[in-house]
């Protein structure tokens, strides 16, 4: 794209986004988004569905700017709950829990929240600029991916989950398998067969992510904290410093850049883009760190990297929707819904036929991100104060928000029963020293991987060599194999040394 036309476009965008009315809708979206993001369980999809009919009465620009604001506002809010009370409301904030909550328990909730907001803003700025400059070429890149390539990418994603584990590698592998099995529960996409539904109709559509995450993280954390006074007091006792130190910022800057790069690329891909982005950013940080064993105990890079990655991915996931009209996830499907309500059929023509809307929306994303960081940083103090509420009371509030949040997903009481089930399961996992995060990644990637595997086999007319014949697919598989070896080799060596020692 010509540089001058880029500036013309951005100028047009600013002229739309900075009108008083659109600034207002942007603010409304960002505030509502942050609020529902903070509430565990209540996600952007449900909120956008509720607000969709209302948007009919707004001008098209205002409606879409507000809906987009809800989405990235929810990304900011989601990390707040993950860091403060170990509750991942969105699949992409699961990894934020690992080191973010660990930081909070060391009294460093303030720096963790602030770095999450700063990282998100940095990533949002870069990714928005990327959309403006390179949306069409990035679309072409995403279209190079055939089902076989996606399948291999999912394999790579699962391997990153093994790398991520800070305990036993073999148990992490078991948890991934368990997650994969949970993920394929429900109606098979290819054939319509029911699998592992045990005749219970709530399982026909598969298990929802939220009850599992709320159960194994949220309820389980309450149980563990109520059991153990020392553990619980850690949460609320000492709070040292609300803002990150210069050292913190220095340490996280590299992670933000790397997370942003990973997130920007993975966000364009449909399906698990944002989740893969946050998981792989965490893995990357752990791999290149000089102290990988400290991950999971409150490393600030473990917050900065994934938070930047998931926000970058959230922004770039707009690219296929804007350029092709293809929603890459449920939130983008709601955006498409918002456009259709205004008689705009999403697709390549939107950019040329409605440049004001197109560029206004892109610029508003940056404006919205700016608003979010501006009012999220002062909020950090208030959130940290919330931890001063005695845990015996805080636990009751968390319990309630978990249950009502899960109920609000589908107005289904049965899903609240699921959260009870997974709460107990999560407690068992902790007792057996099994980490739930790899299970959740398996759960999310499992059905995608199976679908792509079968689709690749269909399209190759039953020829499995398609996975090594396609260069992209081959590259992913090689990276996955190398990563796996790097993790397993020292593990085997250690086991052998141990065995020798015991024999001797």
């Amino acid at each position: 794209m010509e540089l001058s036309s880029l500036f013309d476009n951005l100028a047009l965008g600013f002229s739309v986004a900075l009108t008083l009315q659109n600034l207002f809708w942007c603010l409304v979206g960002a505030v509502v988004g942050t609020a529902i993001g903070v509430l565990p369980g209540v996600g952007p999809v449900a909120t956008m569905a509720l607000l969709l009919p209302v948007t009919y009465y707004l001008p098209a620009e205002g409606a879409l700017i507000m809906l987009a604001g809800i989405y990235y506002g929810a990304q900011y809010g989601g990390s707040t709950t993950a860091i403060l009370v170990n509750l991942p409301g969105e699949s992409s904030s699961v990894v934020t829990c690992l080191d973010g909550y660990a930081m909070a328990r060391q009294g460093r909730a303030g720096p963790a929240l602030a770095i999450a907001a700063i990282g998100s803003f940095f990533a949002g700025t870069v990714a928005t600029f990327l959309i403006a400059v390179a949306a069409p070429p990035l679309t072409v890149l995403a279209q190079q991916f055939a089902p076989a390539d996606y399948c291999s990418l999912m394999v790579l994603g699962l391997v990153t989950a093994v790398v991520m584990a800070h305990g036993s590698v073999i148990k992490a592998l078991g948890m991934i398998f368990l997650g994969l099995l949970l993920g394929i529960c429900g109606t098979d996409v290819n054939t319509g067969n029911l699998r592992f539904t045990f005749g219970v109709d709530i399982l026909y559509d598969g298990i929802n992510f939220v009850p599992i995450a709320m159960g194994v993280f949220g309820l389980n954390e309450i149980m563990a904290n109520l059991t153990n006074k020392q553990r619980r007091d850690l949460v609320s006792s000492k709070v040292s410093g609300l803002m990150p130190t210069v050292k913190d910022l220095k340490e996280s800057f590299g992670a933000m850049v790397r997370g942003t790069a990973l997130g920007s690329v993975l966000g364009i891909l449909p399906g698990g883009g944002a989740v893969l982005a946050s998981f792989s950013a965490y893995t990357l940080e752990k791999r290149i760190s000089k102290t990988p064993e400290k991950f999971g105990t409150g490393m600030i890079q473990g917050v900065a990297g994934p938070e930047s990655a998931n926000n970058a991915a959230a922004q770039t996931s707009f690219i296929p929707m804007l350029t092709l009209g293809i929603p890459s996830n449920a939130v983008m499907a709601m955006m498409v819904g918002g456009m259709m309500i205004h008689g705009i059929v999403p697709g390549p023509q939107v950019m040329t036929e409605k440049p004001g809307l197109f560029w206004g929306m892109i610029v508003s994303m940056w404006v919205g991100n700016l608003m979010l960081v501006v009012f999220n940083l002062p909020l950090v103090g208030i959130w940290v104060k919330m931890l001063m509420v005695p845990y015996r009371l805080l636990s009751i509030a968390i319990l309630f928000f978990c249950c009502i949040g899960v109920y609000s997903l589908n107005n289904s009481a049965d899903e609240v029963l699921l959260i009870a089930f997974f709460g107990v399961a999560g407690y068992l996992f902790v007792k057996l020293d099994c980490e739930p995060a790899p299970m959740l990644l398996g759960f999310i990637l499992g059905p995608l991987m199976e679908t792509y595997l079968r689709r690749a086999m269909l399209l190759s007319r039953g020829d499995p060599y398609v996975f090594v014949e396609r260069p992209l697919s081959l590259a992913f598989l090689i990276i996955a194999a190398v990563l796996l070896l790097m993790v397993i080799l020292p593990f085997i060596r250690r086991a052998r040394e141990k065995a020798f020692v015991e024999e001797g």
Partner: protein
Amino acid sequence: MTSLLGLAAPAVLGGRLANAQAAWPTKPVKLILPYAPGGSTDFIGRPWADKLGQAFGHPFVVDNRGGASGAIGVEAVAKASPDGYTFLLTPNAPLTVLPHLRKLAYTLPKDLVPVCRVGDLVCGFTIVPSLGINSIAELVAYAKKNPGKLAFGSAGPGTSTHMRIEALKAAAGIDILHVPYRGSADALNDLLSGNVQLMNEIIVIPHVRSGKLKLLNVNNAIRHPEFPAVPTLAEAGYPGIDVPVWYSVWAPAGTPKEIVAAFNAKVTEIAATDDMKARMQAINVVVPLQKPDDISAHWAQDSAANAKLIREAKITLD
């Protein structure tokens, strides 16, 4: 969901119902859509819910109950209490295709009664231009020469996007590989990159306009106003398989006739307003108004045609 928690069913009914009819509705009405939010059922259902709520003075609350190709949402309505406060808004597939493919927890016409028809979505077959195929006849010739080489994407097994191309395959005696996707958008992605070559969907229209895809025909009795040069499927030589996707509202069997009639009348009224006309036109939907009896007849006809197709073309879910 009420099936596990049967306690939830309100214990109104009985004698009080007679009085209730006069002043229906007196509280919010639940409109169940059997798919996840954001799909074409939402685009059609939500404007109606909005307008009906305004017209009756009580909100029509949309409840997305997705899953199992629509079977879960339909079952929820079939088992709901017939008190006039639960309705179903659905495309035809869960009512006229699914029952012939799978054992379901509901049967028609026993469990549901028709209320009104709220819109038809006209589809067409689109193909990637790189193959140089310009008409249905050329498509059939190509497929005959290269059996199994072409692949088509669908929004899932048993959906209209699947069934209509199966119908063409059966009528023309050709072999095209079926590749199911989780919804149309997913399939469109692979269609645009050429991983599959053919698809029956309305959401491709912008890409037809931009020249990235080619529209071979429309599945309707009349041509599409925007593409007057594109023939209907009947004109292209394959009559009788050009059924559009039709959306309708149903109520649990036993719902008072007066309530159904009041609902139907209000839909007719709303459909005539300029606002509703504009909203439906924007999403390529035509609203063929029908009385409940006509819908029953249309249902029976569509269902029988699909049963015949599934039997003859040996379509299964496995």
